[in-house]
């Protein structure tokens, strides 16, 4: 079941460096929200705050409110949070185990009682890689191509049935064919999962997302439905960025 998130006055800093300066945002349930903006504007930091991976970095300081269906994230057990909020990274990071063990990792870690074979099939299917790998489930995931590895990582994240999926430029390191398969999967998640995707590629944001957030220098400059943000941007910075005047 998808969940919505509310972000209020989120501030994040690493040491002396203030990266997020007060983010106010609503992530709508069951929709795909894209975070766009130039490099260094805090997109990845914002994403990592949503599943509290930001805390792993030394000197990280996060304050504010992030609510997942009313529950305050910053008070939750991070482990339980991350079972509901999954993440796919820019560089595919499969574990050096078989494909099956990769997909089942989250389930075994949480000790969930499920039909493992079913879960593997369903997750790999939703990640659009079941047909390619159905005979190769025992192969070591390191031996797959980069595109296949990324889809296995997506399947792995789906296996625990999270309510929110965070994606940090999932198709950036992939060849066009794999990238389009990943985008097709994201489109299929609509309704079943809430997706927040960071992307540098504005065309990808247009293809894939329902809502778009434009971040600049650690603040939300514009937020709205994708069509409206791209065709009729309200703020001059948004207009400049979309026109490609800076990146």
């Amino acid at each position, binding site marked *: 079941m998808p969940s919505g998130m509310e972000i209020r006055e989120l501030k994040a800093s690493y040491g002396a460096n203030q990266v997020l300066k007060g983010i106010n945002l609503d992530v709508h349930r069951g929709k795909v929200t894209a975070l766009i903006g130039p490099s260094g504007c805090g997109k990845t930091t914002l994403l990592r705050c949503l*599943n509290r*991976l930001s805390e*792993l970095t030394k000197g990280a300081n996060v304050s504010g409110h992030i609510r997942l269906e009313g529950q305050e994230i910053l008070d939750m057990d991070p*482990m*339980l*949070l*991350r*079972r*509901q909020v*999954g*993440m796919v*990274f820019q*560089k595919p*990071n*499969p*574990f*050096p185990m078989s494909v099956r063990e990769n997909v089942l*990792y*989250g389930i075994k*870690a*949480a000790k969930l009682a499920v039909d493992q074979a079913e879960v593997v099939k369903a997750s790999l299917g939703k990640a659009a890689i079941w047909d390619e790998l159905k005979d190769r489930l025992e192969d*070591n*995931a*390191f*031996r797959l191509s980069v595109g296949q590895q990324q889809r296995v*990582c997506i399947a*792995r*994240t789906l296996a*625990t049935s999270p309510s929110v999926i965070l994606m940090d430029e999932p198709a950036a390191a992939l060849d066009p064919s794999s990238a389009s398969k990943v985008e097709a999967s994201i489109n299929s998640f609509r309704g079943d999962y809430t997706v927040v995707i960071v992307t540098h590629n504005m065309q990808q944001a247009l293809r894939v997302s329902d809502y778009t957030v434009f971040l600049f220098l650690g603040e939300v400059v514009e937020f709205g439905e994708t069509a409206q943000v791209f065709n009729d941007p309200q703020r001059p910075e948004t207009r400049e960025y979309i026109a490609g005047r800076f990146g």
Partner: protein
Amino acid sequence: MRPLLNSAVPTRPAAPARPKPARLAWTKLLNAAAPAVSLATALAALAGACLSLAQNTAPALAIVELVVLSVAQQVLFLYIYLRFAKWDFKVALLALLSFAGLVVLYVMPEYLTGWQFNAVVHRSFFAAVWLMAMAIPAMMCAIYYLAGATPRAEDYAHYPLVLVPVGLALAVYVVLIGQLVLQGLPNLTWQAISKPYFSYGWPIKVFVGGDWPMWSSELRTSIGLLYYLQGTGLLMLLTAVISLPIGVGAGLYLSEYATGILGSLTRFAVTALRAISLLILGLTAFSLTDLSSGTPLASLLHGRYFDGFVWQTSSGGSFLAASIVLSFLVIPLIALATEEGCRSLPPELREGSLALGASDETTLWRIVLPWSLPNVVTALLLGCAEAAGSVAVLMFIAGRGDYGVGPFSQVTSLAYAIFIIWFGDQQFKGSMGPFLFTAGVLLMIITMGMGIAAMLTKRWLVRRHRGG
């Protein structure tokens, strides 16, 4: 200046008639002659140097070789001038030094002592050193010119500088192992490894005149290396069992949790253990055994044996005591290897595991430890090999292994057996003397076997747990 000798490559633009192939071949041969001869004399000089070291040969051989070498260098010098139109003074210097060497050799008496020397300078040794010192540069120059004096030829010319020392080192290695095997192999029989050594009196009942039983004792003896083999194996096993959990734990602590003063202290303690002299560890083992006499710990730390009537406690140490002290040596190996393995884990794997909602503990067991397994197993096997070969740690508490091998029997091993075959009492020497080198061969097989096993296991584990 124009070269005066014909070069194999024409120096002018293509002449109307090309030289016939037969003539080209001859020219190439002539061009190769001088450096080839120089190379041959240099190789001969190298052989002569080795021979001089091995035997006390008359100086005639060395002097002849130096003459030939000097002449070859002079010919080479002229050849270089004729073909490449330059003076190569290195070659000239070599010719001069060879000549100087042979003059010194001719004049030098068999031994030199006195004056400021406080040692004997042996003529053969001088010949060997001088020939070696001449041979290597001569080879380098010869190869350079044989290969055409191009920049690439310079690369080839450096090969002798590397290959000669490596070759000599390998030769020494082969000789050492060879003499061990040659002396030990003849006595390596099935009898030798399937039977133990013991020599003790065993009580037996004898019936003397009617039904009166009396206790007498019969001498039971056997000659062989079995208990030493078993002892070596048990020592390796016990040391592994004790060091593995402590070593892995220390390594994990150092890489995952250690911060500040406690971390630095732990790291220092772990590293410093390896710096302790092995004899000090031997004394530690002795203290462990000695201080526990008369306490309940004695049944664990002293060697115990059954003499036919009761269980006796010897004054020597048990396998357990020896393994405890040997662990001091092996734990740092395993700890540092574990730490290195954990640090080499790509951070994205750790992040990926945490992002899926796994606890730190799950991440440790399923991601971090399997990743560092190759390092851990290699260190363990090498540590065991070290335990197998150690004598200094055992020598104050070990025994002949008369009564068999077990965790609470007196400690003994192949290495210790070698030690006491040499230094032990006459009776032992008499019966076990022939097995001195045989025990050495067995020990070498065990330690080299562990080394090879370590290498192969690491490769297999990397393929399995790191997808390599």
